[in-house]
């Protein structure tokens, strides 16, 4: 670039900057000169900000407001006052699912306004009101959980039907019975956490590239080679591969890829694949919890609790690694008879295993490695510039797609849209029980039960989550628990370290090891194993999984006690 062009560029930049600066100044000045404001903030009884409260200044006895506005997401409002005020004023607060409040406008505040100064009112607390909508939302939420747990409907369909029912009831029911109104469409959409949606979507695209490179076959074959066919060594190596993969890919994808390969190794060694598969799925559920992106529940927790990738690494990973070591020891003990058996390797199958144990697309793997490394750095250091994980995932996936130029139709179809729709619908359903105050009610009850005892809170939340995650799907459970944990974090002394979010993370993810239906990865593993003629029954999984759950949850919890 020559000097002339550089000079022009600098002038343009300076002019633009000065224009933006002067525009900002003039806007502020304009605002300051013409309007006075009544500032305030609205909270519920759990100190959470309330968005969308209609705040109006009324002449006492009048039905028409002098001025009105709505509260923002942080519960604050700024009520513009552009006319002289008379005596006997009232402020009306109205929001669906809360009790209406009318308070006299303080004389002192009126005096301040008449002196041409804005005024800030004390924080106003609104109490919840239990309406018909409360019960309707609760019933829809419970039906959704039952449909998911029973498998009667696909997860996505159950959540989608729930979200549609809630909106349908809100709009079609309101004209008949006004108290049926739950929320508007825009309120429902506001409950969707787009950070979660885009993070999952971005990671899905990266995973789609990685899974087609043959890396899992290569790793599995080399696991066999390194172990030299010694089962006591092969088992932890495969557990480690599965676990580390689960820390960066989702558990379902990891087990979808690892299970058929593990069956192939087991057939080659002429042993039951269950000896390897069960510990692998345990490892997937345990190590997956060590990173922000390892499990969908962690993604939900991280986004809601503003917990970064590094926070998970520092606060959870050491405990998870300790739990993993204990899990290896437990697996050795649990399968000691099978591991001691003399193995007979099939030469034909070993040859086939070797043939398949090759990287099929080294170029894409190398590119995915570079991009994956860059994404990891952004996950770790991005928090310094407030870079959201979803933005990192989007940048990484876009860069990878541009670099490798795959068939875009193929890549788009690799995105699991059913999962994304599931999350969006789930956010709306959980948002409804939040909107009507059910979550708030549950949070208050748990708060009353636990009191201000942080140790008790940690124990209760961890084990309660672990046991419930054995029975119900842990994603809707976690999504519903987040506001509860948010409340407990504000009322329990010492909980502001966000330790209760980590307790939820451990309980929800590691609880999945307790039963076959506790985690999707378990079901996938069982499904594939059955296709190879090895059935994993509910009883068998429970027998092996329950001790694994107790050991890993206990160790992780002990770590959290040490850490916090």
């Amino acid at each position, binding site marked *: 670039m020559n000097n002339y062009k550089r000079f022009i560029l600098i002038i343009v930049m300076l002019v633009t900057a000065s224009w933006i600066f002067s525009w900002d100044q003039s806007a502020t000045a304009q605002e300051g000169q013409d309007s006075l404001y009544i500032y305030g903030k609205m909270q519920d009884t759990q100190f959470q900000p309330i968005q969308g409260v209609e705040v109006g200044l009324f002449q006492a006895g009048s039905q028409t407001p002098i001025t009105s506005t709505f509260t923002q997401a942080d519960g604050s409002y700024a009520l513009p006052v552009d006319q002289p005020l008379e005596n006997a004023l009232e402020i009306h607060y109205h929001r669906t699912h809360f009790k209406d409040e009318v308070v006299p406008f303080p004389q002192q505040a009126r005096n301040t306004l008449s002196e041409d100064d804005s005024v800030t009112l004390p924080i106003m607390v609104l109490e919840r009101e239990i309406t018909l909508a409360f019960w309707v939302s609760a019933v829809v939420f419970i039906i959704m959980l039952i449909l998911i747990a029973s*498998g009667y409907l*696909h*997860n996505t369909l159950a959540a989608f039907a729930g979200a549609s029912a809630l909106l349908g009831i809100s709009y079609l029911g309101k004209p008949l019975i006004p108290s049926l109104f739950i929320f508007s469409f825009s309120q429902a959409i506001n409950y969707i956490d787009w950070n979660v949606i885009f993070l999952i979507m971005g990671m*899905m695209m990266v995973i*789609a590239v990685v*899974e*087609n490179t043959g890396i899992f076959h290569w790793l599995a074959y080399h696991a066999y080679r390194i172990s030299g066919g010694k089962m006591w060594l092969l088992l932890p190596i495969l557990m480690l591969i599965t676990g580390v993969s689960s820390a960066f890919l989702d558990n*379902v*994808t990891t087990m*979808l*890829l690892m299970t*058929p*390969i593990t*069956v*192939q190794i087991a*057939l*080659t060694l002429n042993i039951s694949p269950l000896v390897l598969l069960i510990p692998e799925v345990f490892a997937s559920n345990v190590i997956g919890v060590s990173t922000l992106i390892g499990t969908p529940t962690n993604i939900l927790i991280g986004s809601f609790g503003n917990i970064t990738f590094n926070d998970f690494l520092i606060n959870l990973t050491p405990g998870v690694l300790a739990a993993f070591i204990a899990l290896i020891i437990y697996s050795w003990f649990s399968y000691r008879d099978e591991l001691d058996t003399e193995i007979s390797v*099939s030469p*034909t*199958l070993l040859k*086939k295993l070797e043939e*398949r144990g090759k990287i099929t697309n080294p170029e894409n793997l190398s590119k995915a490695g570079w991009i994956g490394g860059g994404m990891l750095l952004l996950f770790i250091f991005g928090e310094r510039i407030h870079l959201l994980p979803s933005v990192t995932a989007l940048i990484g996936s876009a860069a990878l797609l541009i670099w490798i130029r795959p068939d875009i139709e193929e890549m788009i*179809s*690799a*995105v*699991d*849209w*059913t*999962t994304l729709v599931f999350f969006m619908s789930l956010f709306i359903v959980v948002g409804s029980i939040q909107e009507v105050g059910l979550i708030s009610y549950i949070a208050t009850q748990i708060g009353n039960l636990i009191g201000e005892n942080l140790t008790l809170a940690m124990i209760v939340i961890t084990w309660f989550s672990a046991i419930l995650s054995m029975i119900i799907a842990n994603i809707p459970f976690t999504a519903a628990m987040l506001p509860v944990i948010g409340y407990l974090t504000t009322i329990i002394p010492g909980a502001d370290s966000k330790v209760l979010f980590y307790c939820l993370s451990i309980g929800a993810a590691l609880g999945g090891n307790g039963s076959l239906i506790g985690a*999707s990865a378990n*079901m*996938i593993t069982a*499904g*594939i194993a*059955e*296709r*190879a*003629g*090895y*059935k994993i029954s509910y009883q068998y999984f429970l027998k092996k999984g329950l001790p694994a759950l107790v050991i890993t949850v206990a160790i992780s919890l002990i770590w959290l006690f040490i850490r916090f």
Partner: protein
Amino acid sequence: MPGILCAIRGGPASQPTILASIELAKETQETIYFLYVVNLDFLTHTSSSKTNHISKEIEEMGEFILLSAQEQAVLAGADAECVIRDGKVMEEIVAYCQELKPAYVMLGTPEEDREDNLLTLERLQAFAERIEDTCQAQVIFTPG
């Protein structure tokens, strides 16, 4: 080219069927056609986007199951081939029977304690009749 069609799923439950096929092959000098059907019905409750990829992985797993059975047959002195198909298990067995026109079809009977097994004895009997009607093969049941 008549032969013995032996549809297997793998695992210990398939062993009696594999062994019976080998015995029959040695007796009749027929070739065994071990058939494995890739069926992804269990994925209906998870991600559909993974279906293509996982189908390939399960096909490879099926190949191992078949190779293992073939190895057993060869070691026992019988001829064996491996066949993999995608789709509904019963439909694919019938379709392959129509193509192969085998002399015998070996079917494993369901385990008594497997309440979840869709292939009850009655259904299996009806299925055997269907095979016999479509390709005139003799269906032999083995304990599974």
